[in-house]
């Protein structure tokens, strides 16, 4: 389970997260939507302390960290509870596809290399890239890179996977292969928090949707409510402009 309480973050005078609270149960998928600059990336990056929150309590898979009093050790323990999938993949550029998946197993988990490679191959197979095991990221398409990064995220068997706009950098024809991969994870009851602009996908995979604006959660609930019958004017406006843009 993930439980976030009163999460606050500001950059200088700009309040980016204004006391965020939410929960994700095990095996659930939470989708975060909202206009650009509303704080979605900051929120997801605070969960693994890529950004250090100013205040708030984050509890993931039994590790509880209070942002105002935590040590580097606490932060690393929290980080091990999650894995991250970035918008621009961030694969290790000096490592092959397989090494990208096994790197943390060997270095962090101290797993023997051979065992790590077997697990790595299994994960590459799961994302349909076993034949790319020895390719460096530079020789993979964006969609393939993102699928490797999903395999990398799965390798440590994290409690949850955080995905920040996993398809936004992809050419349109590559989006669906990545969404399919994520959907498969959702069907296997992987706990995920996804920031996305793919509304149909969000409706399809989410158990819960949060709509954010200006550092606040404006509205949350199941996709059938938030996406199809929003109650707040702000949400309606966002979804309207979204559909209008898409038709153009």
């Amino acid at each position, binding site marked *: 389970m993930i439980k976030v309480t009163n999460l606050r973050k500001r950059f200088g005078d700009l309040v980016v997260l204004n006391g965020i609270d939410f929960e994700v149960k095990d095996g659930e998928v939470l989708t975060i939507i909202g206009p650009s600059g509303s704080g979605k990336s900051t929120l997801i990056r605070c969960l*693994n302390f*890529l950004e250090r929150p100013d205040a708030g309590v984050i509890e993931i898979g039994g590790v509880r960290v209070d942002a105002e009093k935590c040590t580097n050790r606490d932060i*690393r323990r929290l*980080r*091990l509870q*999650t*894995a*991250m999938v*970035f918008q*621009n993949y*961030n*694969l*290790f*550029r*000096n*490592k*092959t596809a397989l090494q990208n998946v096994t*790197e*943390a197993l060997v*270095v*962090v988990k101290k797993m023997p290399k051979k065992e790590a490679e077997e697990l790595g191959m299994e994960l590459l197979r799961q994302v349909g890239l076993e034949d790319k095991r020895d390719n*460096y990221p*530079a*020789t993979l398409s964006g969609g393939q890179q993102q699928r490797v990064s999903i395999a*990398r995220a799965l*390798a*440590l068997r994290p409690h949850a996977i955080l995905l920040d706009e996993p398809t936004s950098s992809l050419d349109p024809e590559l989006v669906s292969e990545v969404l399919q991969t994520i959907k498969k994870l959702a069907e296997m009851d992987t706990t995920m928090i996804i920031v996305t602009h793919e509304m149909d996908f969000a409706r399809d995979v989410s158990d819960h949707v949060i709509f954010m604006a200006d550092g606040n959660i404006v509205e949350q609930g199941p996709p059938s409510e938030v996406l199809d019958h929003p109650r707040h004017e702000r949400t309606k406006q966002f979804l309207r402009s979204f559909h209008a843009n898409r038709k153009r």
Partner: protein
Amino acid sequence: MGVNFDPLYIFELLPRIIRYIPITLLMAVLAMILAIAVGLMIALARNSKNRLLSAGAAVYISFFRAIPMLVQLFLIYYGLPQLFPVFTKMDAVTAAIIGFGFKQAAFLAEIFRAAFHSVDKGQMEASLTVGMTKVQAYRRIILPQAARNALPGTGNIFISLIKETSLAFTLGVVEIFAEAKMQAAESFRFFEAYLAVALIYWLLIIVYSYLQQKLENVLDRPYRS
């Protein structure tokens, strides 16, 4: 009498000068190793969030970039023993290696710093999110990528070093340039002697450049699409 130039004498000299290539290369290679080690520490200190470390590194870079190599060699070889008697025992080759190394460390530090900066920020973030410590991330992910970025600049420093070792003659080290000088003084064939040593420097640097190109090809392999 025509032009006073005896090309055959060059061929006579070459083998004599070549015998001193090992000492030239020894100084260049050891100074390079020292420069890389010190330069790396200075680069990391310069990039550190600790103000004192960063300022100290900045002063180091500024000082060693500013003073002429000769002045620095004299400072180390003739100056230090005055302050610390232990340095009286230091031989000229060691003094030269230290002098070259510490100076080029300042230039390397700037090259390394730029190389670290050119590694995408996302590489560190990805390393941290899979649970690596910062040290692990630097060693396994950031450093290898920075090394490839730094290779051309670092190679230029090594080329400078090979040439700079000629200054060691001022401390009494006999390397290829000193040998050429002595041969010239003996035979009064200055042009031939200095041309011979010039050709040897040229050759050394051609060979080195070839090796570096090979290394660049290997290090580049992961990044070619």
